[in-house]
């Protein structure tokens, strides 16, 4: 029985009666009723990511006769997550969705997601052993698996190899000199600035962008070997590590080496145009740079604090089953099949910069040959996800509060100490205002 009643048909009839028949007939855009052989898949991949997602979905689709995987692409950010939650609450959720691992804690416990069935997954060759341990561990909420990771994506440093070569900065292996401190980094930035004559040497866009601020911060903070605890009544954090991390960011965006007023797109376009030599950004930017035929290198973000801890901010795109009141069994089975096919075909996804989560793909020689992907693939083994809670994660209000408090320290409007204190206070408010379940 179809869960999709004929409201669409009757809607069409009524509209026709209202004199819009010509319009509808002319354009034929009344949304088609969903058949049982169609599954609807929501994601937030656009641009290069979107093209590659489209390629692997199309391939999976081709392997599944009589089935159509309909992709619906929403803008990344809070709207996507709010829309996904509202559609799950509205009972017309898509059959398959993408959720960032960092948002899982906000979705699974509230009943917005349905868990994956392990036996069924095993039939499609997916099990604990096909993922890395940290990824699998993060997929489990209250003892059930809610998320199947497609990838891990981390924050890295891209650099322009042509510029670096011109300045004689590269060693014989084509790598930049080792960076062990903020001074090393800024020296490098000044070298790049000299080479291009541009205002800045390093691109780091953060203005109005909580996510970008958070990614670099969380990298620096976790390099101190510490984390946040949001599980109790109050926010627990390491104040020294917090302060030092923000101070380092502030010193980096000094208006000389890096702009203190560039947003994501602006910083990205500078690096793309060869104006800056180094960019702190997510691995998902790789296709855009490669499409522009940039001479591109990449490396993990070095530890600037002498702590010897390898760490970086990271997240995963994961497949989830948005909650449906009465799931259609056949369509649900198709969702399992589609995910297994997509995971097994995720090499092109790796070409888009992300490191595939499905281990059999990572272990292929084809993946190992990818450059500069393989130069930072190691970050997938030590990345740190955001601290789990119902209000944290990708594009969350936690990110907004992070921007609200910390950006002012970077632009010099408040002191680092005040910014950190403000943030801590706000997290305590978020904790008290979070939904109680």
């Amino acid at each position, binding site marked *: 029985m179809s869960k999709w009643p004929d409201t669409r048909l009757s809607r069409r009839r009524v509209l026709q009666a209202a004199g819009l028949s010509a319009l509808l007939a002319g354009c034929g855009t009344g949304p088609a009723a969903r058949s049982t052989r169609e599954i609807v898949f929501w994601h937030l991949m656009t641009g290069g990511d979107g093209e590659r997602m489209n390629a692997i979905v199309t391939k999976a689709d081709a392997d599944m006769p009589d089935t159509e995987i309909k992709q619906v692409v929403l803008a990344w950010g809070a709207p996507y997550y*709010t829309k996904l939650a509202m559609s799950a609450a509205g009972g017309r959720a898509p059959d398959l969705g993408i959720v960032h691992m960092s948002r899982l804690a906000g979705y699974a416990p*509230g009943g917005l997601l349905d868990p994956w069935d392990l036996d069924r997954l095993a039939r499609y060759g997916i099990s604990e052993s096909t993922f890395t341990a940290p990824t699998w561990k993060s997929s489990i909420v209250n003892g059930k698996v809610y998320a199947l990771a497609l990838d891990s994506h981390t924050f890295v440093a891209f650099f322009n190899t042509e510029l670096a070569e011109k300045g004689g900065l590269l060693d014989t292996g084509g790598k930049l000199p080792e960076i062990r401190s903020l001074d090393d980094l800024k020296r490098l930035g000044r070298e790049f600035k000299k080479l291009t004559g541009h205002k800045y040497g390093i691109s780091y866009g953060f203005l*109005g962008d909580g996510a970008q601020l958070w990614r670099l911060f969380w990298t620096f903070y976790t390099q101190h070997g510490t984390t946040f605890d949001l599980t109790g009544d109050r926010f627990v954090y390491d104040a020294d590590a917090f302060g030092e991390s923000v101070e380092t960011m502030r010193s980096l965006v000094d208006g000389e080496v890096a702009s203190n007023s560039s*947003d994501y797109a602006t910083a990205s376009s500078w690096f793309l145009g060869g104006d800056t030599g180094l960019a702190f950004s997510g691995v998902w930017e790789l296709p855009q740079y490669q499409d522009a035929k940039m001479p591109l290198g990449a490396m993990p973000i070095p530890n600037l604090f002498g702590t010897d801890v390898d760490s970086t901010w990271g997240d995963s795109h994961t497949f989830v089953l948005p909650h449906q009141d009465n799931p259609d069994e056949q369509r649900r089975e198709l969702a399992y099949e589609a995910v297994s096919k997509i995971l097994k075909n995720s090499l092109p996804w790796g070409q888009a910069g992300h490191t595939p989560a499905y281990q059999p793909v990572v272990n292929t020689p084809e993946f190992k040959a990818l450059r500069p992907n393989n130069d930072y693939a190691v970050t997938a083994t030590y990345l740190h996800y955001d601290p789990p809670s119902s209000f944290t994660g990708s594009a969350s209000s936690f990110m907004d509060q992070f921007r609200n408090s910390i950006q002012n320290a970077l632009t010099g409007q408040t002191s680092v100490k005040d910014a950190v204190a403000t943030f801590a206070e706000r997290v305590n408010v978020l904790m008290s*205002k979070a939904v109680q379940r």
Partner: protein
Amino acid sequence: MTSATLTNKGATTKAVTTRPKALRSQSGLLYVLPFFVTFVLFLLWPLIYGIWMSFTDRDLAAGAEPELVGFANYAEALTDPMVWTTFGNTVLFTVMTTIPLVVLALAAALLVNMGLPGQWVWRMAFFVPYLLASTVVSLFWEWLYNPELGLINSVLGVFGIEGRSWLQDPDFAMAAIAVATTWWTLGFNFLLYLAALQNIPSTVYEAASIDGAGRWRQLFSITLPLLRNITMLILVLQVLASLKVFDQIFQMTAGGPDDSTRSILMYVYDTGFTNYRLGYASAISYIFFAIILILSLLQLRFARRSDQS
């Protein structure tokens, strides 16, 4: 269609100005039925249903039945600093937009009403932004305000003024949104003023000219006093509209930086749909509704009183 029962009584009224006596006919109920069905379903019922919701812990995500929590949501809202911050922001926005939207609209209408050549162009220039969707307005202005690549800072740079990150600076973000909003909706008030100006009979001015009153005298002693009623109306409409601000803030700054632009309606949205707490969001709505209601009544009272004087 049911035929109306005709009685001669009601059909005999004459003058246009006096309220025509209505025809006694129960079929009137049929006429108002469609309107009242939608009225009850989509205005009255949400209003009543929302009151119930505001006393529960209704959670967007949870499948469980909501439980009654008494006045807990209201108690929480009254002590929630964000309710007061966002209310303050909303009032600030209302002040920042209402004043220019009245003054500039009036000035533009007065200028256009002088009958200078190019009427068509002036009207279009002032009115066309009003035809845009909020999304488009936001995209336009985010681009204009872009700190490194935007037109505004480039132009300021030509004059040697260093621009700012308008939308990312807590001191300027709300003002920046108010400027964009003024640009967007100025045309509406402009048209109302223009229509009112054109309704002033030219004989009034002719009489004044004969008495020797100059243009400025005429403006202050004839035009502006005659525009008092329309100004009152525009003020009321503008305040009510500004208090409900959501779209352009949601799109341009999402309430940031530092919550400096978060409006109360945005907080309702975030609480209900992003943090899933529908019950609490409803309670905030009702507190806001009560405030608007009180403001409206005060305005009405004020308008009446100044009418009598």
